């Protein structure tokens, strides 16, 4: 199993009364909350942490895209990836990813990803999320009904552009381009590996299975919450007649390691509470633009009473630390405790790529590095053997971490 190091880049200084005094961490968050000194220092610190992750032996380092967002400060993940490409030499540069429907034309993604792949000499993993409704339909005012078809057409165009041996014209539903000819083309041939982050829609499972893309079950709520989602994905893989290579899957997990279970419980409480009960203060009205999800998904949602109860608890941001630990939102403990839980999770869900989230909330740089090094030294070695018998054709050719 590959160990990835995933950074959300949260703003670490939201006020204590944020939940009561502010409408939402996303879309209409008050820009005055962001101090430029804190921002500049935060970016610098976080980029250093990603580089440090390579030093600690992580196979890949990951960034993602969010807009108008106080817990994800990367509206342009490609800018961060560009810095990482020049400051690292072995780890996979994992951009998870570019929300294709927001780029006009999507050829821009083909171009920038090609540049990143060349900067890093073939270490890019190209991620194409649909993007949350907050990022797409509200922050960028993308029409929710058009988002998914535009996204699919964009990916089709990017994949074709990367592999075309001569310029071509494209007269699509959303894109009309007379001379498609991105220069440069990527380092990796025929193209960088493609990973698709998803939140549980049947359409994304099928899309990944049909196209042999990695499915990224990117959840904030841990492997226990994503079981149903992942099970659905594997059913789709089987239905498409594909093998069950675990490297078809990536899963995110918040993790806090310490010398003892008790120490971990003490150390990681505050950053977890900051993240889950403050950073995720998202106004519910921004989560459900009509047309963002399909009619079928809405019908399924209304039938899932259990999910509604859990969702309502999450939305209220009054989770206790014990609930977070009990529910597996954060896997904490000594190296052995953490390794055992993650091995169990990996085996159960068939995880080939574990996207560890070892910085979360307002976690200090010191604690982040401690967590990262301890995981890298004492947990990762015991997990790498899981599914090691499988080849990973979804791994960038230039990554040697």
């Amino acid at each position: 199993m590959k160990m990835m190091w995933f950074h959300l880049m949260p703003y670490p200084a939201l006020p204590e009364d944020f939940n009561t005094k502010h409408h939402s961490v996303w879309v209409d968050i008050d820009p005055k909350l962001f101090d430029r000194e804190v921002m500049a220092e935060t970016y610098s610190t976080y980029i250093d942490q990603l580089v440090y992750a390579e030093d600690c032996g992580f196979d890949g380092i990951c960034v993602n895209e969010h807009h108008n967002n106080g817990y994800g400060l990367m509206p342009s993940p490609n800018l961060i990836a560009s810095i990482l490409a020049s400051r690292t030499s072995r780890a996979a540069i994992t951009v998870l990813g570019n929300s294709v429907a927001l780029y006009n034309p999507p050829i821009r993604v083909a171009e920038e990803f090609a540049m990143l792949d060349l900067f890093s000499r073939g270490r890019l993993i190209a991620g194409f999320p649909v993007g949350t409704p907050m990022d797409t339909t509200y922050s960028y005012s993308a029409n929710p009904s058009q988002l998914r078809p535009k996204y699919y057409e964009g990916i089709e165009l990017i994949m074709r552009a990367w592999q075309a041996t001569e310029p071509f014209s494209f007269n699509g539903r959303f894109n009309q381009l007379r001379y498609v000819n991105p220069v440069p083309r990527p380092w990796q041939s025929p193209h960088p590996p493609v990973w698709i982050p998803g939140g549980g829609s049947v359409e994304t499972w099928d899309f990944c299975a049909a196209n042999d893309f990695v499915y990224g079950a990117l959840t904030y709520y841990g492997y226990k919450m994503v079981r149903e989602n992942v099970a659905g994905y594997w059913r789709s893989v089987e239905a498409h007649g594909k093998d069950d290579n675990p490297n078809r899957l990536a899963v995110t997990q918040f993790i806090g390691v310490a010398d003892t279970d008790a120490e971990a419980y003490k150390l990681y409480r505050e950053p977890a509470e900051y993240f889950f009960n403050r950073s995720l203060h998202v106004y519910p009205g921004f989560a459900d633009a009509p047309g963002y999800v399909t009619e079928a998904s809405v019908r399924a949602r209304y039938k899932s009473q259990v999910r509604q109860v859990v969702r309502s608890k999450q939305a209220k941001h009054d989770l206790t630390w014990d609930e977070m630990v009990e529910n597996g939102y954060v896997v904490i403990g000594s190296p052995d405790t953490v390794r055992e839980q993650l091995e169990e999770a990996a085996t159960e869900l068939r995880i080939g790529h574990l996207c560890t989230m070892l910085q979360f909330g307002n976690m200090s740089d010191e604690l982040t590095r401690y967590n990262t090094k301890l995981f890298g030294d004492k947990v990762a070695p015991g997990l790498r053997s899981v599914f090691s018998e499988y080849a990973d054709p979804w791994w960038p050719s230039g990554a040697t971490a």
Partner: protein
Amino acid sequence: MSNKRLVYLFGVAGHAELSPALRALESDGWEIVVPTVPGFDGESGFVAPDEYLDWITTFWDALDATGALPCPVVGASLGGMVAAELAALRPEMVTKLALLAPFGICDGDDPGFDLYAVPAPERMAHLFAKGVPDAFANRFADKGDEEAPVARYVSDIASASMLWPFGDRGTAKRLHRITQPRLTMWGELDELIPVSTSARWGSDVRVVPGAGHLLEWDAPDEVTSALRAFLA
């Protein structure tokens, strides 16, 4: 089909039933023709048109199918935007044009309340200043507890896709082409399209005190009286 007929183009919440104002016109002998438009009927399998022009042709297909045009057209809210486009681009089809708080022109400095940035169960309350009429509160209830919210979601998809992000599709550029007799009314308490925007439709907008966005429901007597005089 009666010679005393008019076409009614419904608003952002779709067509639940005729408002009291339109029922009054019906009792005057008017035949009220309401086109059936995909999506707004809440039926399963709806795919939103790609662009505004596609939506306009969808509405025109539905209108042409009624066989009612040419005749007076009353358009409310989202339907007002469509009615204005019809009057501008197919003037021979519209003999008189009545607009009730039409979308189509937005003041970027005051775009109005974002109806789709609140949870779905809270949306209806922002369309009316005097409470949500039963017709809208119970819309699609006949489909049952599990399907009714799905139908409402489909209807919301239709209106949202047409209006996203704030219902300005360049109608202002075509206003000069509307030469038919025109009545424009606006609710003083319209949350979705602030009454200040109404001035962009002309200097003779009739503002109805105490009425919200779907003013024909909040102020039926005043809207009925105005429509009766206008259509006479």
